[in-house]
């Protein structure tokens, strides 16, 4: 089943009055459900911009984007937020956990915005933490955990809404090689159980572990 279809996507940033910067040029990309895709390329190649568009954090200047057959290229901010909440799980390089709240509450956060209340929310958050092997740390604060553990919490947070896609932006970038491998192991396991994973990385070692690699350069996909 076709999950993501990008056609003729351009992204142009207006810098100042006269200067324009084209971050993406005529991107055409299809991703099927259950794929494990790595998007690689040097910095400035446009991979983060592509990820922002895929994650509905940004809109393309031109072109079409269909997610599960729904045209999502030009939606209102409100609807984009709803789709992000329901269909996309984010994992960031910096983990982006809230240090003031417990691991359990961190993982439950997307469910709060999804309008899922009380016991169901706790149960789902516990289940997601169980999947990443952290069910013994529910009440800890993120800053009491190691980097690898924090990234596992972030993956649990991405999983908790049972999204169609997990978008991971340099998820191993802040981790040592060994811990990075453990995190990649979790992604592989998730992919084997059917999750679609799109990974952004500039490390070839990491990209190799995905089943499909897309290389970018100067805003274009290299053939």
């Amino acid at each position, binding site marked *: 089943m076709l999950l993501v279809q990008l056609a003729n996507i351009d992204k142009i940033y207006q810098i100042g009055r006269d200067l324009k910067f084209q971050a993406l040029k005529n991107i055409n990309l299809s991703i099927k459900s259950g794929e494990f895709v790595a998007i690689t390329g040097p910095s400035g190649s446009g991979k983060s911009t592509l990820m922002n568009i895929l994650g509905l954090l940004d809109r393309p200047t031109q072109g079409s984007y269909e997610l599960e057959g729904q045209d999502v290229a030009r939606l209102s901010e409100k609807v984009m937020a709803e789709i992000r909440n329901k269909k996309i799980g984010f994992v960031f390089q910096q983990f982006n956990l809230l240090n*003031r709240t417990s691991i359990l509450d961190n993982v439950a956060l997307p469910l709060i915005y999804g309008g899922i209340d009380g016991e169901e929310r706790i149960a789902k958050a516990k289940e997601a933490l169980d999947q990443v092997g952290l069910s013994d740390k529910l009440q800890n604060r993120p800053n009491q955990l190691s980097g690898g553990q924090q990234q596992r919490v972030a993956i649990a947070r991405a999983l908790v809404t049972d999204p169609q896609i997990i978008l991971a932006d340099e998820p191993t970038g802040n981790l040592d090689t060994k811990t990075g491998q453990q995190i990649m192991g979790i992604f592989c396991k998730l992919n084997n159980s059917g999750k679609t994973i799109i990974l952004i990385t500039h490390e070839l070692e990491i990209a190799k572990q995905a089943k499909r690699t897309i290389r970018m350069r100067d805003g274009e996909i290299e053939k």
Partner: protein
Amino acid sequence: MNHLETFRVAITAILANKVRAFLTVLGIMIGVLSVILLTSLVSGLKTTITKQIAGLGSNLVIVIPGRIGGARSPGGIQANRLTFADAANLKNKLRQDALVCAVVQKTGTLKRLNINDKGAAIYGVQANYEKIISLKTEKGRFINEADVASGRRVAVIGKTVEKELFGATNPLNQTIKIVGLNYVVIGVGASRGSIFGIDQDNSVLIPLTSAQKQFGITSPNTIYLNALKAENVKDVQAKATAILNKRLTEDDFSVQTQEQALSTIATVTNVLTLGLGGIAAISLIVGGIGIMNIMLVSVTERTREIGLRKALGAQPEDIRNQFLIEAVTLSGIGGIIGIVLGILLSLLINNFLQTTITWWSVILSFGFAMIVGVIFGVAPAVRASRLDPIQALRYE
């Protein structure tokens, strides 16, 4: 996202920075506290004066020098143009309608043996003063017609004077020095309490004639008229005004009934309440600016958090509500602490000065604090809700 969740998030954020939250709340707290305290003081003052005036009896008509509300109103610098002849004239012409008593007033030191008083109010009065002002003489007797006629040096002292100069000794027939001259104590007045810290019992009454002679006073400070019949009060007022107008102009004196005196006091205290309450309300606004400042800092500090929440599906309204509730919670906490402290403090002050806590001031100041929280919380909250998630997530 429901409001309970938003509220929980806001509380967590406030608790994460307790010292800062406390300092932020301080401004609102002081504002609410001062509104409640100042209005309770003014209301207390009003209650006391009203009680005193009401206690004088509703038949009372008071003549004072100067025109109330006029250019030379009481309290202003002016020449007192009332004379004792005016008082005598009123007494003579209103014989059928009212009791008339001229009163002079001075402050001076009292002395007995080697005990010095701190200074007391000295009133020169006529014999019917007791009846007109409904004073009670607790021990001994009041000043009589004969005392006034012959200018005897006799005195009726207040409770405070008795306590200070005599202690447990019986003061009757003892001699005291009033500003250097010997007077014999003939009576002790019943306690009258205090008005706004001024002890009404720290006073001594002497015959009008004795006071005139000793201090060389030529003008009465007050002329009291007590209408013999309640229905004649307005009539007495009109007649007194007409009599005085023959010799004086309307700027020279005011003739007020008890009812008018009460309404004058209401006017004065209302102005005081508005003025003091207004000043206190300014501190509430300053407190609101403090909240806005801290909320703006908080939004900047938590840019990444906002970006993350948006990425995870928070709607702009969710973010706006989160920060707005945080601001309103801060002002609400300040308001509640202010109410508690304000009430406690006015109850404490009530031991020295009468205070009356008015519920409208509690409700009004709290409501105003909440409104201030909303008004000054909106700008930071809207700023937070408009942050671009991509930029916000990258923010260091």
